[in-house]
């Protein structure tokens, strides 16, 4: 057989039928849902259909949940209705729900891996574009819209056109102080916010192989910010060690067989990609965004770019608009820019290692601006507390919250005010993303923590940790 890519192998295993016009009916192994699923459940009800495989669906509330005072219930009546409908819809269908009072509740992309629901070689979908996160395990995982959620609930399949495949190799040795977030921000800056459109991306190379599972998730999470619905990393010993013993991972009696299968998945020598990109590790540095697209990032040592230096009139106009929104003048050094607020959390950066990295920076210091720390799940929170990380954050004056999407998308009311500048570990610096008129600068947890204690964008490499 001709050499095949990781993507091709996973795709081929899931073909149920070939349809008209180059469409393929793909079997979906696991379907994750959150409160946004109410649109799809409503559509199912209207058409008189039922959930075909409730045992393949896992649910948790994350977008609308409060991150403080949770015991008192959800004050916002509309948000409460969303969580209640998820409860009612999953109960009626017999779907596993990690509810608000369950320690396993959390951001859907954090708990899938944490529970071992996410595994190599699976197809995983969720009505959320950051489903690409799960590709860190060598799964084919991608976000879908509400109509597709309804389709998967009803049929456990999805019609898809095969995307092209791009390999992005990050080669060399990761410089000190460079986080996984900096790797992916660097990649997005290199290929552009639309550079991955129409592709499934495989991340490879020595830097990627050296990443922990949590770091790999950060990289794959932001694939969609480069336009790619799916980002994948070949499973290896790091993957297997992470999964072993997790509640929904293959049990002991099947473990060896599962690992043997997973070992067949990595891209074969000589397999051909539609596009190959190489990023040199030595070019990587802690990065921050200056604009309103995740592609708009520079090293922290850099400056706000000058639109006047850009020839393409469309690009120039869009940069000018971004700088006006961000309240920034061309040529301003990024380091030293005053921030009003800090957010450490989101499906990109809310796992234990992220919290450790942030805690290491704030330890023994004081936050000078309001700062939220929102762990990705109840279990992440528990593990962090077992290490005393919460005490570090609280002693430094940061807020230690309950898990959820929180200020990444602000749907639960955790928002910044208009004009406020936010140092954020989330994934999108879009206009209005963290609140109408709020100005988001994306960065790693360590960099956000540095901004919390200095009140400015700060090169974390210059801080004593």
């Amino acid at each position, binding site marked *: 057989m001709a050499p095949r890519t990781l993507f091709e192998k996973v795709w081929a295993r899931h073909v149920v039928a070939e349809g008209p*016009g180059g*469409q393929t009916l793909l079997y979906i192994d696991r379907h994750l849902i959150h409160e946004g699923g109410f649109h799809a459940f409503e559509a199912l009800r209207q058409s008189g259909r039922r959930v075909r495989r409730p045992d393949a669906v896992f649910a948790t509330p994350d977008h609308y949940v409060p991150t403080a005072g949770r015991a008192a219930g959800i004050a916002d009546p509309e*948000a409460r209705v969303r969580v209640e409908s998820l409860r009612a819809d999953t109960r009626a269908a017999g779907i596993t729900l990690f509810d608000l009072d369950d320690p396993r509740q959390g951001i859907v992309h954090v708990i899938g891996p944490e529970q071992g629901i996410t595994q190599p070689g699976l197809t995983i979908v969720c009505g959320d574009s950051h489903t690409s996160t799960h590709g860190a395990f060598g799964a084919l995982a991608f976000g879908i*819209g509400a109509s597709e959620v309804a*389709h998967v609930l009803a049929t456990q399949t999805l019609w898809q056109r095969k995307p092209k495949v791009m390999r992005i190799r990050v080669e060399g040795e990761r410089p000190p102080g460079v986080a996984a977030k900096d790797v992916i921000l660097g990649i997005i800056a290199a290929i552009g*916010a639309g550079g991955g*459109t129409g592709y499934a991306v495989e991340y490879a190379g020595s830097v990627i192989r050296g990443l922990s599972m949590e770091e790999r998730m950060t990289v794959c999470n932001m694939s969609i910010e480069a336009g790619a*619905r799916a980002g994948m990393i070949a499973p290896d010993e790091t993957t297997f060690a992470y999964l072993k013993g997790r509640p929904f991972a293959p049990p002991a009696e099947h473990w060896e067989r599962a690992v043997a299968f997973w070992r067949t998945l990595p891209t074969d020598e000589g397999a051909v990609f539609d596009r190959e990109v190489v990023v040199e590790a030595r070019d990587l540095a802690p990065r921050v965004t200056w604009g309103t697209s995740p592609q708009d990032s520079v090293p922290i040592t850099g400056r706000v770019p000058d639109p006047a230096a850009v020839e393409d009139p469309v690009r120039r*106009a869009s940069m000018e608009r971004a700088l006006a929104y961000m309240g920034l003048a061309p040529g301003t050094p990024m380091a030293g820019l005053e921030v009003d607020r800090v957010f450490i959390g989101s499906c990109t950066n809310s796992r234990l290692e992220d919290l450790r990295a942030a805690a290491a920076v704030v330890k023994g210091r004081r936050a000078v601006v309001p700062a939220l720390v929102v762990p990705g799940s109840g279990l992440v929170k528990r593990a962090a507390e077992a290490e005393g990380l919460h005490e570090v954050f609280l002693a430094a004056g940061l807020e230690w919250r309950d898990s959820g999407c929180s200020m990444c998308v602000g749907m639960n009311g955790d928002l910044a005010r208009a004009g406020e500048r936010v140092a954020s570990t989330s994934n999108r610096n879009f206009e209005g993303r963290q609140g109408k008129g709020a100005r988001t600068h994306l960065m790693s947890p360590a960099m956000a923590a540095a901004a919390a204690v200095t009140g400015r964008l700060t090169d974390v490499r210059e801080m004593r940790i």
Partner: protein
Amino acid sequence: MERFSTLTAVAAPLDVPNVDTDQIIPARFLRYPRSAGYERFLFHDQGPDFVLRQPAYREAKILVVADNFGCGSSREGAVWAIKGAGVRALVGPSFGDIFFENCFKNGVLAVVLPREAAADIRRQLHDRPGALVTIDLGGQAVTAPDGTVHRFEIDPYRKTMLEEGLDDIGLTERHEAAIAAYERRRREETPWLP
């Protein structure tokens, strides 16, 4: 779903690349059921001079957009807002993958034209606000206000779904035997999966 055949309508130009779904519909509106009328939320936080608020484009049924339109989140509410506002077709050089898929699920035609062609149509629409564009799905052609005809590609499946106004769950259910056979094989090959 409403069928799509030929559409001649006012088209509005959106020149900014990377228009994300948060701009199309801010997240705070997604809590409402679709019946709330998502058109009220379309480009909600854009200023009064935003193109769709200008009188000449108020009746627009076609948007002619720039690169990577609809990038960002998977929220189908972005398409509901667009469709709710009466827009039936988008023309542009590239679209966010999930948004693109969502368009077709809702009977909205997203036409991909070369960057220069889309830019040229936008220029004409700026020069003659309120000018008409024609999209012939059967003939796979977009006619610009100046009469220039741009052919476009569309995969036959999507075309049929739009032309016939079909819902694809019904279509998939005809494959039930194949799905069941797949599940039997899967249980043997990967017994650790439910």
